[in-house]
């Protein structure tokens, strides 16, 4: 199983029927493909849609039915559309049960940096700051390391997206949570040891005596 699939499948386990969920671009998008059978989720696209469905087949797209990257999507039965003020009211106002975002760095306390690399990549924060500040639950989907360098670090060298700590980081090696403001190993991926995770993590990691393996 490749890294992306491990991450997406594990995050899909966090979904329960009736939740309103926003998926960011990149790895988070793939979570939608692994929703367990019988679980019905309302997926939000922050450009103004609840009930986002799969990419329609060729010839079945519509220019005014798009996701937050401007790409064609479908709308599931029960979908609704609204303006951007309403969309961000849903996000900041405590109505969004979960957001899944990509990450560049997460620090030892769970604070996320994911929107810019000064001097290199300045795309703008889009909705990321509102999502991390406002969602009831924030889950980061990212590779554990980038070019061999740990992404879970003592201190972020990149600008924060929000000071609000994330709830869960899911990588191809581990699930990490931040109870009491301390990075804690919650699960390891199949055939990955706690030592492997520690070796690939710069932040000090609390490792409980028994760490269960992810079920995928």
């Amino acid at each position, binding site marked *: 199983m490749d890294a992306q699939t491990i991450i997406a499948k594990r995050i899909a386990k966090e979904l329960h029927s009736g939740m309103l969920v926003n998926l960011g671009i990149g790895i988070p998008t793939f979570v939608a493909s692994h929703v367990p059978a019988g679980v019905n989720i309302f997926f939000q696209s922050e450009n103004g849609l609840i009930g986002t469905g799969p990419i329609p087949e060729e010839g079945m797209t519509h220019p005014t039915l798009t996701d937050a990257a401007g790409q064609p999507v479908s709308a599931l039965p029960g979908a609704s559309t609204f303006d951007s003020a309403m969309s961000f009211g849903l996000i900041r106002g405590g109505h969004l049960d979960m957001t899944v975002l990509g990450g560049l760095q997460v620090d030892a306390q769970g604070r996320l940096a994911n929107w810019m690399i000064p001097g290199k990549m300045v795309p*703008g924060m889009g909705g990321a700051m509102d999502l991390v500040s406002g969602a009831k639950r924030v889950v980061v989907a990212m590779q554990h390391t980038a070019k061999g360098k740990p992404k879970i670090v003592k201190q972020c060298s990149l600008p924060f997206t929000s000071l609000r700590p994330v709830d869960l980081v899911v990588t191809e090696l581990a699930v990490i949570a931040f109870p009491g403001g301390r990075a804690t190993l919650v699960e390891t991926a199949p055939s990955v040891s706690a030592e492997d995770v520690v070796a690939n993590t710069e932040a000090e990691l609390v490792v409980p005596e028994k760490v269960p393996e992810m079920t995928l």
Partner: protein
Amino acid sequence: MKSIALQDAVAMIRDGANIMIGGFMAVGTSERLIDELVRQGKRNLTVIANDTAMPGRGIGKLISAGVISRVIASHIGLNPETQQQMIAGKIAVDLVPQGTLIERIRAGGFGLGGILTPTGVGTVVEEGKRRIEVDGKDYLLETALRADFALVHAFLADYLGNLSYALTARNFNPVIAMAADTVIVTAEHIVPVGVIAPDHVVTPAPVVDYLVANE
């Protein structure tokens, strides 16, 4: 509301004007107004919009044609030309979190001086802003935004200027329609009064100044 020809509508927009443009990655952006702004060779416009789309679509065409000198947006990442012009110092870019941007525009259109949002507290977004504590929680004071013109694209407009929008092409459009001195609208379809039921009118006619005639 007055109906107006496309070129006369755009002729009202002088060089250096401050304009809000609806759309999200060009979905819900008035391509006709954009093309006419380029054709008339406008310069030094300040554009307030969610994003700068991509080259060849929506606001991306204004970037390519050198129409814009300043952008206030939440995202420019899918338009490499915006980033190149920003690095070259040809355009100034103010990046604003999307939820904050739309609320600042809403405040401008709703008679409010600004809004208090938790978004951006403790980040680079806070620089130069007032932090205000309410009931033990920190918020940033984000001031209202208004513009000289709003360029709105609707799905249906009736002869009086009542508007409704299509699916995800709604986005910033009904909000900017409240926040500019002059509101110029294009619509996919211009229909008799009554075709849009009162419950389905999203932007009421009195806020629309000009409806561009379809060809």
